[in-house]
């Protein structure tokens, strides 16, 4: 009897111990671009990672089109909701610092994904945006033979990622003195806006020999094909639609630079690690991009392996980041978070 009793006590203790170990957290998410494929994949990766980790009891998502003041409001609302960590894709590098500081002062872990913030108390997990632009632009300028005019289709003015990419692009430009910029526009990372802009450039009759895009890519190829303009080399991101075009559009030379939207899932994984007491030594972690071009056999093989017809054309094909995300492809496509 005594033994049985002791056994029960031990079991109960073990059960409680187990419960204490499987501590769950409340995670908040703030994003300020809605209706963009890359951002939607990012949010889905965040949900999928929260679900797959088993450590997240609930996810509060503030996801709308707004400015830095609106994002500060969202972050403060998440603080009110009593979250343990906030994963944020910042509207710009400085504008949300005050709200982030308020969160970290309250002991909330803040991870900025995709783009950096200048607030030192936040962790940053970002794709290496400077390298992203440098690699793609270097490939493009080489493909253009080191001379000619390039159309420079940037992202959103003032976004941290756009600033960093501009540095990389300018670096490649400085290394290729024969290249001039035919036209520079901000697509705002909006498909319709980018397509309108390239149509205007084509209609203006300006001569160009290559197009560098900040990820609004498949509509640019569409516009070239539809207008019958010469198919100049195009650099884009690893969005499913563009990766498909690189294999299927006859005569198109181009390269996709990886920029996984799944960095959002990695951000959730990092936040959970920090909450579990395993904070990284460095506040900033960069994920390095890779170039997949369709002019070499090695590049073609990579493109073929990456192509994924089950994804929406605006989604990046790299739906996971090895070493960070633990969800399956089905989970990220299902886009369901804990409790959904």
């Amino acid at each position: 009897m005594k033994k049985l009793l002791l056994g029960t006590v031990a079991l109960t203790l073990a059960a409680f111990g187990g419960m204490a170990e499987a501590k769950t957290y409340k995670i908040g998410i703030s994003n300020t671009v809605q209706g963009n494929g890359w951002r939607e994949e990012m949010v889905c990766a965040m949900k999928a990672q929260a679900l797959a980790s088993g450590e997240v009891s609930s996810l509060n998502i503030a996801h709308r089109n707004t400015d830095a003041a609106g994002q500060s409001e969202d972050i403060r609302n998440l603080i009110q909701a009593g979250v343990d960590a906030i994963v944020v894709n910042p509207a710009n590098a400085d504008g949300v610092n005050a709200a982030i500081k308020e969160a970290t002062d309250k002991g909330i872990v803040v991870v900025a994904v995709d783009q950096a913030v200048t607030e030192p108390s936040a962790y940053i997990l970002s794709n290496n945006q400077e390298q992203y632009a440098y690699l793609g632009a270097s490939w493009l300028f080489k493909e253009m033979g080191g001379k000619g005019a390039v159309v420079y289709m940037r992202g959103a003015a003032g976004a941290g990622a756009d600033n960093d990419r501009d540095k990389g692009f300018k670096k490649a430009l400085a290394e290729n003195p024969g290249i001039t910029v035919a036209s520079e526009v901000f697509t705002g990372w909006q498909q319709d806006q980018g397509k309108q802009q390239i149509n205007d450039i084509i209609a203006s009759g300006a001569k160009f020999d290559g197009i560098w895009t900040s990820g609004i890519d498949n509509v640019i190829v569409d516009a070239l094909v539809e207008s019958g303009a010469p198919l100049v080399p195009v650099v884009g991101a690893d969005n499913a639609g563009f990766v498909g075009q690189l294999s299927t559009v006859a005569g198109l030379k181009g390269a996709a630079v990886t920029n996984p939207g799944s960095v959002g899932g990695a951000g959730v994984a990092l936040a959970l690690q920090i909450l579990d007491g395993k904070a990284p030594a460095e506040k900033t972690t960069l994920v390095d991009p890779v170039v997949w071009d369709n002019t070499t056999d090695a590049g073609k093989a990579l493109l073929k392996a990456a192509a994924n017809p089950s994804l929406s054309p605006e989604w990046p094909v790299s739906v996971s980041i090895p070493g960070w995300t633990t969800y399956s492809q089905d989970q990220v496509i299902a886009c369901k978070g804990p409790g959904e």
Partner: protein
Amino acid sequence: MTRILSKNIWTLGLAALLAVLLVITKLIQPDFGVSGLDSLGRAALPFALASLGMAVVVIAGGIDLSLASMMAVTSVTAATLMDGASDGQSVLVVLFVLLLGAAMGTVNGTLVVVSRVPDIVVTLSMLFVWQGTALLILNAPGGAAAPWLRALSVGGVTLPFVPEALTVWLPKSVVFLFVCLAVVWLPIRRSKLGLMFYAVGSDALAAFRSGVPVGRTKIAAYAVTGLFAALGGIAVTMSTGIGEPIPGPYLLAAVAAVVLGGVVLGGGRGGLIGPVLAVFILRLVRMDLTLMSVDPNVTTIVEGSIMVVVVMFGGVVAMRGRRT
């Protein structure tokens, strides 16, 4: 007493709705308190100032679609000029930006009155003009805000010789808002100019026949709107510490708050307290939906539905009131 009550029934109803929402928020999030009210006040500030601007021009029978763009111009101007400026200089910057806002409003109003093109067309065109101007001043978010200015909207009120517990729940941002409202609007409302705004808004022809200078009154209303837009732009810079050239979501939010706040879009009727309460209601709804972790794509649908229901309900109440 009953006259005051029935005259302000809409505003009182909104205040009651806000109180109910605050109670609901407390129920959803038992920790909701001083810092929650502070967050709410700071989030509401730029929206409230934008709504005040829109309410003035709507009362005078117009509309200003360039409101958010004027906020962007004033925000980037303030942030650019304040970058590296001393405290004394930044006071001058604020005054200059307020004048700039009023000047932009005057341009809008003059164009509407002189060209006789419908206000909606003129101010829609000016939306693009001011937006381009903002981008010319600053092509990417940047600049800075003076620390004293940022501190104006952070935290609760503390008064000397008064226990902190009594005043700390009142956010500085709310006090800032009501000071702006009182300083700009009270003198106008109490003067002939305020009366003329309402007269022109309710029937321009009748106002003209009673000797009201309709054109000049309209221009004055647009100027006041520009002044509130400048205050709104400064509030954005206070909140973010930088200037953003791309206008935020303030235009439609201001129209929504004006409608919800009981200002008749045709002009001539309504006050400025209603729109302010409406802004707080809409921000609080957003906060509650975040607290309840409602699907973000559903959030905007809920916000819109609440507006329609409240305005319809108000319409029914108003009709009943008229019958008895």
